Structures are given as C-alpha cells and as structure tokens.
C-alpha cells in the first residue's frame, strides 16, 4: 500500500468495489479466455445483484470483457459497444452461497475456448478470483499467472517448475488441485515477471499437458 493506492485508482465512478473491481473481474475473464468473448452469461450475487444496477456493475463487467480499463470513459456505453461488437450477453441473479457479497459467476465462450469463472470484488478495486471451471483457485490479478490443466499424475509439478526454473522465472505462489485421484488437475503459478512466449510454448509441449493459459498482471489504467 502506497500513497498512489490512497490517491487512486483513477477510475470511472461510482464505486471502487462495484465498478472498478467489476471491470477488473471482466478483464481477468477476457485475458483468461485468451480471445474475444462471443457469449457471456453473467450471474450476479448478493450486493452485485441488489445494488449493482445503480452502481453500473453490469456495465463495468461488460466493459472489462470488452478489454476496457477501470478509467475508460466508454464504460457507461458498454452495453451498446458489446452489441456492436457482437457479444451475446445475458445477466441473471444467482446465489453463490456463503461468499463475499460482491461476487459474480461468468460463463464465457469464444471461438475456441470456454470457461466458467467465479470472483469477488473485495474493496478498493481489488479482486479475488476463487473458482475456475469448478476448481478452487485464489488469484488477485497482481502477478503474471500461468494456469495449466493436465491429468493428475506424478511428475507434472516437477516438469513445470523445471522449465520455469531453467528460464530463471521466480515463482511467487504455486497451487495444484485435482477433481479426483487420477482425474483432471489444475495448477496455478504466479510469477514475479512475465514469461516469454517460448516458455509458455515449452509448457504446452510437455507430455500429458492439455491446456496452458496465461493472464498478465492486471493494470489499473490512469
């Protein structure tokens, strides 16, 4: 926390949690999808559902999905822009259980990829992504992050960390989950620096690796 966190962020109003944080959740979803989203079903939970309309939360989520930053003055026009760009979107009210009141579930589809993301806006524009395709994750968009999907088997963690280590990439956090023994596994790796495309490709070419996604550190605009 520094002086420019106190005198900032530069953002489009009215609420850092309901607006700026919502834009960043949308951005995270777009970056994770890795392509222009063509379809988005967005479930608003708790306070996002109750007071989101007046705070422009749906606009902010869409703006993020369209690639806008939290200080983009196009945010109020996000619905029209989404329609122009052919994004088929739908909002609904949902109950995600005992989670932060400012939470959302987004099902996104592009030409090639699809995903389901669950995230909360926890104040001051900060976000926590806590669910991805049914896996528990904990990502805040503050580190360049690699997400890997593969079958649960021995040696995967070692192969991934070897590639990263040999490339001189320092790991900030690393977590791996599996849906069942021998089932599908998801690993999230937060790095101190952005990996080169070659490193990501090397990870993609690892035996058994099914999917490698990358999300850069989220900016704040302004």
């Amino acid at each position: 926390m520094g002086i420019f966190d106190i005198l900032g962020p530069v953002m489009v109003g009215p609420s850092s949690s309901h607006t700026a944080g919502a834009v960043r959740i949308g951005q995270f979803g777009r970056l994770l999808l890795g392509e222009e989203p063509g379809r988005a079903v967005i479930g608003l939970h708790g306070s996002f559902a109750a007071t989101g309309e007046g705070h422009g939360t749906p606009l902010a989520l869409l703006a993020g999905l369209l690639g806008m930053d939290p200080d983009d003055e196009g945010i109020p026009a996000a619905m029209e822009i989404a329609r122009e760009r052919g994004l088929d979107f739908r909002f609904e009210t949902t109950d995600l259980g005992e989670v932060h009141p400012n939470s959302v579930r987004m099902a996104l589809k592009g030409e090639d990829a699809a995903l389901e993301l669950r995230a909360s806006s926890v104040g001051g524009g900060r976000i926590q992504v806590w669910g991805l395709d049914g896996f528990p994750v904990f990502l805040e968009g503050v580190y360049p992050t690699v997400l890997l999907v593969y079958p649960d088997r021995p040696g995967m963690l070692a192969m991934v960390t070897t590639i990263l280590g040999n490339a001189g990439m320092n790991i900030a956090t690393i977590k791996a989950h599996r849906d069942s023994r021998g089932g599908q596994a998801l690993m999230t790796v937060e790095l101190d620096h952005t990996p080169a495309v070659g490193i990501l490709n090397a990870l993609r070419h690892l035996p058994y690796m099914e999917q490698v996604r990358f999300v850069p550190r989220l900016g704040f605009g302004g």
Partner: protein
Amino acid sequence: MTLVAGTLSAYRAAALERDAPLWSVFLAEEAAQSGRDPSALEALMRERIRVMRQSAARGLGNPQMSRSGLIRGGAHRMAAWMDSGASLLGPAFTRLAATALAVAEVNACMGRIVAAPTAGACGVLPAALFTVADEKGRSEEELVRAFFTAGGVGLVIEHLASLSGAEGGCQAEVGSASAMAAGGLVELMGGTPLQVDHAVAFALSNVMGLICDPVQGLVEVPCVYRNAMGAANAVVSAEIALAGVESAFTADQVIETMGRVGRRIPEEFRETARGGLASLPAPGCDSCRGACGNA
C-alpha cells in the same frame, strides 16, 4: 534511514530529525518503498491532480444527472449561485462546496475521478486543495507537495484505522478525506508538521462517529453533500491549526479512536443501506421529476 512507518508521530519525528518538511518525508518514503524515482512520483501526482481538475470542471460545467435520478446537476446550480453574487461568505467558500459536489456528482454519474481515498469521498481533496491553492495563488509545485502530505496522512489512517465505509462508517471515508485535506492545506500554507498533526486531529474529531447510510445503496445521497461538508471541515480544521490553536489529542490518538468507534458502529450504519437516511421510504419519481425516465 528506514522509517518505522504507520504513525503520524513517526513521520513527524523523521521530519524533525532531517529538518525537512513533512511532504518530503512522505515522498522519500514512497520512493524507497516503490523503488521509483522521486521525480517520477511527482509527475504521477501531477497526473492525478490533472484528472481531479477535469472531474471538477466537468461537474461544474455540465449538470450531472445520475441514473437513479437522485443527483440532478447540483454543482452546476451552485456555480450559477456563486456567479449571482449571493454567496453567504463570498465566492471562494461557494466554490469550495460547488467543487466538492462537482467531483462527487461526476463520480455518481459514472464519470472519471480519482478515488481519494475512496470513490465515495472523491470530492473532498480536490475541493479543499484546489480552492485554497487558487485563492492563495499557490503554485502547482506547492500543490503537488500538499497532496503528498494528504496522501501520507491517508496511509497513516489506513494503517491505524480504516478508510472503508463498510468497516468504519462515513467517518472513515469522508472523515478521512477531510483529515487528509486538512493536513494537506496546512502543508500548502507552509505550516509546521505539528500543525499538520493538529489539523488532522481536529478534522477527524469533528466527524467522530459519522455513519454511512447510502440511500438505495448508491453513492449519491447523502454522500455527495457530505463531500462538501468534508471540504469545509478541512478548511476549518486547517485554519484553526494554522492560527496556532493546539488539539488536546494527537492525530494518532484520534485516528485510533476513530478506528475503535468504527468497529463498534452497528452494521446497519456501515454501507449496508439499512439504517439512517437509507431506512427512509425510497424517494420516488415525485422527487426526481421525471429525470429517471420512469415518470
């Protein structure tokens, strides 16, 4: 020297030891923590100030209408009132209130602002610092320094208490912005670090216990008008301190007390929109006179 950051008295002691003004201690600390060059940080602060000025100009120049219909160009109306010569205490004081309304209304209407320290309290600092700087002919450089002191005060409040209405009520949002602005104003006018401390203590003492009760859960009523109150409170507190009046308690003491009070404020008065003004019957289309489009 590394600073034990976190309390205003620690920053004051550092200023005394280095025989330097408070703003330079905050700037040096920020440079050390972020690893960035002080001149780059000053440029970033000028950019923040530029965005704040744009928000103010927008709200004063064009009536801001919120989607809910609760905000209907109040700042624009005040600008006309100021020009009419009817101001109660002269145009500067009216400009102070109008600027606070302007920035807060731009925020309410999904315009671009600097959250300072939060979006809900974004009108206080620009109103207080710009109005006094313009009135007293202070330079942009002096204004930048005042903002570093204001930001540093905000860091201390974040460390010792809270800047969140959901955690500490409106005293933690508009109250904190007001205290930051009061400290910044003392810096702007060349006051001592001790006078900054007194001004911060006065400003927060004056709003101790203020609840957060946003009508319809929106950052509109009473938030926009409390921004004007926060700016006026900042000027009053700075002026009392600059005149040489001393607070009975240190800023750190008052900040910590504000934090303790905040934790004891019942939940319905902490941004849940269940208590206070938010518990009144919803202002309907009678009050918005069709501006909401539902009439």
